[in-house]
């Protein structure tokens, strides 16, 4: 394998980092299979993730790129990677998620030894996806990633429910791969059989408009399925609750981002943009995913399913950024297009940080109590202060609260929408669509606040709602370190949002092939104050001011006398844990407000002591209807099953039948070619 840097001299360290990342992941996989040494495997995976993170930062700061070619796989084609700034940005998301997830399981035995080995290989496959620069390498890495992640979800000894979740995931991910494969085949045919992304880009002008549109649609469908956007989302909430928490952290933090990476790489970089109808479709899918994702999330009381629905929401926010960028680019508003694309990339990195943190935190809670159900948790903060603090920071970050990182990227996404709605070059109806999306994004962020107050408050505050919750204990030191690292990143990326957004805008500009120097008077995230004309978010200055204001008020209002401890007011009777609002009751107002979309059903069953009016037990069950799954996905699913049954009939197994098919096919071909 040859490693050649084709960038500046300062980038000389980058090939070493890349080689170190690959080597430690491969070694980690090998060690996981050795009985005595298997505990070293997560440590090496952590090193691999950290190297990828450093590589990403290096690519971003030096502006150089890194290429490597080698190995003929099965005599078909060479493996080839080329990491540029865009790869670097997504390497950061991948690296921080992978390093923290691997660190969180240091010292723990995996579910089984093969799973222990599959995890570093899964990380390695994502590393390759982000660099692959030929169709062949990309699909090879992509498919390895899909299969390894499916294996990690299902495990060696799955229950029936887990197998079903795994099947849904495998089916969806292969629909995605099929769409991408066809698109790649068309692109390869269009460029005279070449597999290079660069060659495909050069050949795009030769494609007919129809071919171009077909490729764009296939790419969009394939990659949004991997990203988990609605309506291709149904695998996400099934796969996450059954996967181990550190696997969920990487799947949600890094793997679904490869879908976003693929969209940007293929649509922006290779195809050079998209027509308005597709940009608006991506914007619309983003808005629907964001709103419906968070609405379904609020309704969940399984902590991991709640987080899974939030991934759909955040992918939606990222797609809103991407959609507005494509729209702006098509109408020559390149500076704003770069800003919106930077927003999408920034949110991908931020989501990797806080979602990995929240999944590791959820894992800690499940580990400490054995419970997934929020309705049986409560009061864990006293037993798990580090988990509460870090989970709380992650919750505030994902809710888009200043001065944390989630706010900075959502602010940029909003600015992209303001730009699209205000650009006179854009069609009026498209401008109105962008304006309406502003409302959808505002609704999303406010519902996210509701959801994470619920998730954090019901889990960590109040009184324990079950014996298991009362007996909880703090998680392991490596897991605490992993959460601490990610929480520090949520704060750090928030306060340093100015330089980070600046670097990502540079990446976005080069991906969009924008030349020249940046024009003034575009909204920006900066460290210090702006001019007051174009909108500015002075992340560092404002964050410090906010912290100072809070500190001053806290010191000033600190009571000289010690507070007297009294029971919580419950109208005169002794407080009990059952008096508290549960996760289900907390989300009731939202369930009622959005009843036309959520279609909630409830069932109250009361049993009485025989012959009296005194109830002996009351049970309450409440469920929401997943309209999209029932009305859209189920019919599609049934149709494809019927199609499969028909196809099975064609395959009768008799050799005469197959000979007959061949004869018919040859005859038909002869007739056609006549």
């Amino acid at each position, binding site marked *: 394998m040859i490693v050649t840097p084709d960038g500046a001299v300062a980038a000389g360290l980058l090939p070493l980092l890349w080689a170190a990342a690959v080597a430690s992941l491969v070694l980690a996989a090998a060690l996981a299979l050795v009985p005595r040494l298997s505990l070293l495997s997560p440590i090496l995976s952590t090193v691999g993730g950290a190297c990828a993170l450093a590589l990403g930062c290096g690519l971003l700061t030096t502006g150089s790129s890194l290429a490597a070619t080698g190995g003929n796989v099965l005599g078909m084609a060479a493996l080839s990677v080329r990491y540029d700034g865009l790869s670097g940005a997504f390497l950061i998301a991948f690296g921080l998620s992978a390093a923290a997830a691997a660190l969180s399981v240091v010292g723990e035995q995996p579910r089984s030894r093969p799973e222990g080995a599959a995890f570093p290989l899964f990380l390695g496959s994502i590393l390759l996806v982000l660099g692959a620069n030929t169709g062949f390498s990309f699909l090879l890495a992509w498919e390895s990633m899909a299969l390894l992640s499916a294996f990690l979800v299902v495990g060696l000894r799955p229950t029936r429910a887990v197998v079903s979740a795994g099947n849904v995931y495998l089916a969806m991910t292969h629909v995605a791969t099929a769409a991408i494969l066809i698109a790649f085949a068309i692109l390869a045919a269009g460029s005279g059989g070449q597999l290079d992304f660069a060659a495909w880009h050069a050949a795009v002008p030769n494609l007919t408009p129809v071919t171009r549109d077909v490729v764009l649609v296939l790419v969009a469908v394939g990659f949004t399925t991997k990203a988990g956007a609605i309506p291709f989302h149904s695998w996400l909430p099934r796969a996450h609750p059954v996967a181990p928490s550190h696997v969920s952290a990487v799947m949600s933090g890094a793997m679904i981002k490869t879908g976003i990476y693929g969209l940007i790489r293929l649509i922006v970089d290779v195809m050079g943009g998209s027509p308005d109808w597709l940009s608006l479709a991506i914007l619309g899918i983003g808005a629907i995913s964001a709103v419906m994702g968070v609405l379904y999330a609020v309704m969940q009381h399984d902590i991991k399913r709640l987080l899974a629905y939030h991934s759909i929401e955040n992918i939606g926010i990222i797609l809103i950024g991407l959609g507005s960028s494509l729209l702006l680019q098509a109408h020559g508003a390149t500076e704003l297009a770069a800003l919106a694309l930077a927003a999408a990339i920034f949110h991908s990195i931020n989501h990797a940080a806080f979602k990995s943190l929240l999944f590791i935190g959820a894992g800690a809670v499940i580990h400490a109590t054995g419970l997934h159900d929020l309705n049986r948790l409560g009061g864990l903060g006293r037993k798990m202060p580090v988990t509460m603090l870090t989970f709380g920071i992650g919750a505030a970050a994902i809710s888009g609260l200043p001065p944390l990182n989630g706010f900075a990227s959502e602010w940029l996404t909003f600015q992209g929408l303001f730009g699209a709605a205000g650009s006179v070059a854009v069609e009026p109806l498209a401008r109105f669509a962008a*304006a309406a999306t502003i*409302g959808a994004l505002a609704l999303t962020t406010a519902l996210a606040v509701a959801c994470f107050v619920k998730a954090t*408050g019901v889990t960590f505050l109040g009184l324990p709602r079950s014996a298991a919750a009362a007996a909880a204990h703090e998680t392991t030191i490596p897991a605490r370190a992993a959460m601490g690292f990610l929480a520090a990143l949520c704060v750090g990326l928030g306060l340093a949002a100015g330089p980070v957004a600046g670097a990502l805008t540079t990446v976005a500009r080069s991906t969009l092939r924008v030349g020249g120097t940046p024009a003034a008077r575009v909204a920006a995230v900066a460290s210090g104050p702006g001019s007051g004309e174009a909108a500015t978010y*002075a992340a560092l200055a404002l964050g410090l001011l*906010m912290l100072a*204001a809070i500190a001053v*008020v806290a010191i000033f209002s600190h009571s000289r006398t010690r507070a007297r401890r009294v029971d919580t007011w419950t109208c005169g009777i002794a407080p009990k844990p059952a008096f508290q*609002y549960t996760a289900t009751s907390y989300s009731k107002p939202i369930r009622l407000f959005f009843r036309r979309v959520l279609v909630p059903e409830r069932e109250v069953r009361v049993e009485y002591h025989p012959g009296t009016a005194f109830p002996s037990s009351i049970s309450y069950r409440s469920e929401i209807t997943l309209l999209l799954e029932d009305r859209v996905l189920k019919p599609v699913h049934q149709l494809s099953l019927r199609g499969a049954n028909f196809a099975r009939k064609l395959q009768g197994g008799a050799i005469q039948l197959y000979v007959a098919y061949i004869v018919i096919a040859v005859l038909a071909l002869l007739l056609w070619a006549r």
Partner: protein
Amino acid sequence: MNGSTTTTALLAVIQLIGFVVFAPFLAATIKRTKAGLQSRRGPGLLQPYRDLIKWWGKKPLESSASGPVARYAPAFVLGTIVTAALLVPWATSRTPLLGWGDLLVVVGLFAAARFALALAALDSGSAFGGMGSSRDVAISALAEPGLVLALAGAAIAAGSSDLGAISAFGIGQGIGLLGPAHLLAAAAFAIVVAAESGHYPVDNPDTHLELTMIHEGMLLEASGRSLATLIFASELKLAVLAAIFAAVFLPFGAATELAPLPIAFGLVAGMIKMLIVGQGLAFVDASIAKVRILELPDLLGLASLLALAGLAVQVLLP
């Protein structure tokens, strides 16, 4: 009209003192007018100050179930809203902290305050805290699209989402500012102000009946300085919302140059505009019934639709 760092610091100090002194007074005038409309005399205009001083000196009680979240949330809430208060134009058309943050930052700071308060309400394990908290976050979720969309129209017209730039643009437009898009957005924002500040027809600011409280329900376990801090924070938030309404929808009267006389005039003009917004709230408080909680989506959805209609007029009609 940019001025130096000293000007920025001076304006920030003036505005901070202005808001701290004026916010309880604004709350008092609302109570007073509401009482008058209901044929009562109502508390004096200094009563909010007396209340705050009284709570400040009280010995605090803390729930035995609650911990650091409930203890530090009041400081977080007030600190956050004080920060927001410096990002809103009052006396001048520019914001005191020039270029530190735009309307989205103010909305984000409000969300941060709400997050902390709603979380603190769950800390004591009280049913009433959960009730208030869950209703507050749900209602805010309905109000937020209206809030952002109403301001988005003005931001798109001004070409910047900086509140100072929006205000200056509005002053520059003169009477021509008051077109249909502007009026629709103003109507939407008015509904949102009522919802966000816990006034009729969404919440009753004077109720202490446990089952109907929303904002007050979250404060049930707070006492002493914590209570004073939280009450003051909600008075301040109302004043900031009124100031945003004044700066975006009635920007006239604010100083466009940094000279003592226009600034003094702008201070008084801003105060009068905020009092007018407060009187509007008092009038609504006294004259209509509270909307059933199940029908709030209709009311707040109306706000979003009005704002969207404003945007449609602005974007689709050249």
